[in-house]
């Protein structure tokens, strides 16, 4: 299978994620979309590593996963706090700061 297709998939995933962040209101879903983007990047790394036959890209994928996990910890902490205060996870509700 042509490895370029993985790249296309990666680009699609990234786009879905990027657009998802913009159109979805639920903070958790928004966050998931970001994770999707990270994973799209991971896929791209792995694909390139595969094409080139080096391991660098694959190593990076592991790093990314770790970092993403950290991000989840921080992210969920923030989202949960917000939820506890507001009883809502809609990112649109959190719009006191503006202008």
């Amino acid at each position, binding site marked *: 299978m042509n490895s370029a297709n993985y790249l296309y998939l990666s680009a699609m995933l990234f786009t879905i994620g*990027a657009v998802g962040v913009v159109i979805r209101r639920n*903070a958790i879903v928004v966050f998931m979309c970001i994770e999707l983007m990270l994973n799209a990047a*991971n896929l*791209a*790394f792995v694909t390139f590593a595969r094409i080139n036959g080096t391991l660098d890209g694959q190593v*990076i994928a592991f790093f990314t996963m770790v970092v993403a996990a950290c991000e989840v910890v921080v992210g969920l902490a*923030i989202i949960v*706090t917000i939820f506890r*205060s507001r009883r809502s996870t809609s990112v649109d509700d959190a719009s006191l*700061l503006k202008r």
Partner: protein
Amino acid sequence: MTDTPILQYSFLAPILIVLGGAVIGVLVEAFVATKRRASIQLSIALFTIFVSFISLLRIRNLTSAKAAFNSVMIDGPAIFMQGTILLIAFFAVMIIGDVDHFTAQASAVPGSEEEKSAVQTGRQQTEVFPLTLFAVAGMLLFPAASDLITLFVALEVLSLPLYLMAGLSRRRRLFSQEAALKYFLLGAYSSAFFLFGAAFLYGFSYSVTLAGIHAAVIGGTANNVFLLIGLLFVSLGLLFKVGAVPFHAWTPDVYQGAPTAVTLMIGGAPKLAAFAMTMRLLVDGLLPLAIDWQQMLVVLSVGSLFIGNLAAIAQTNLKRMLAFSTIAQMGFMLIGLLSGVSNGNTLLAANAYSSAMFYVITYVLTTLASFGVILLLARAGFESEEITDLAGLNQRSPLYAGVMAVCLFSLAGVPPLVGFYAKLSVLQALLAPGQTGGLILAIFAVMMSLIGAFYYLRIVKVMYFDQPLTATTVSAPQDVKVVLTLNGALILILGLVPGGLMTLCAQSIVKALGT
């Protein structure tokens, strides 16, 4: 295969020490009684930073050393930036040292009994110090990173603690949490872009190191689309931290919502780190693409100057106003960066990069002092953030009004304050190649800084010419007072004799450019 990894710990020592200090801080948070935590944490943080600085001094003469398998590059700019970051961090920690600014228990629901009792019983959590140290470690790594993966990790280590800290405000917790959410979501979003861009840079060059990418770009036969996407998305991740338009939208909201102490952290050292890394990436990694990214930076700086200055004028919230002002100032800094592209004339390039570096350092110094003053005003029991809160500050506290005025005049670019030399050096770097485009951009920048002067001076007017709303004097612990005075004096002294700092900047850049 069985080579023992040679990490060269001495080169990494400054970073590792800070990380170690952070871990100790976490342990203290876990095991030491609440009453004594605050002072212990503060001491640990300050001590750590101090020791880290000492260890940095020991390696200050390195010109181009690599550590940890080439993933960390210890060279002139890196050491210089690390040193500056540590100094700034030291100041910042001293200024924010009072834990009253932070929520007693971040996990408690705002306004709940739980929170009240936490405040009453003094069960104050002090996680802000270890978080700060983690962020500082990230910042230290940032300018030294020399491959994409280190870069990404540094970016996250720098960012994640700040996301959390943004939500730690004791007062106005809803705002604070919202700021944290926005900061986090947008930060993560931009990180994702960064990572995706990094993937494409890797795809283009099949190398993760900046040097490898550089070589591949010079080779120039590979896929340009990958390169462009990579360049753009990676820059996006960094420029998000810088706060350049159109990646600026988080800045005002986060600056306003976060506790002022954290705003001080966010607005200070991370800008240095982000600048350093942007420069490293663009110059070390992607110099051959200069024409492209120069174009990009022109657009960004024009946008930043325009949006930042104009939006700042109508603000009534001081922190928001300073946020927009930051955007504008970063626009100026980008001008310095983009001026470095001058057909391989190393002298001009060094001049430009050092001007940008000088700009960002002086800017951070000024921000530190101005947020420090705002922070002090918050002590009277409420969060100070409206411009009117500064009314008649001169009558309440001439010293802090003076420090603030010095900062504002400096930001406005009035000589003989350091901000003026920053603008001067950036503008001369811009005009040095003698191109018409540079001239137009310079005039635009100059006009925009006039608008800037308008809102900075409005605050001076409020401080000096308006009647105070409260008669309470501003009191501050002695150390904070000393630090702020020192900081204000530094802005003035650097204004009278800016030569030394300029030379330092220039030397570190020249070393890096290897000429």
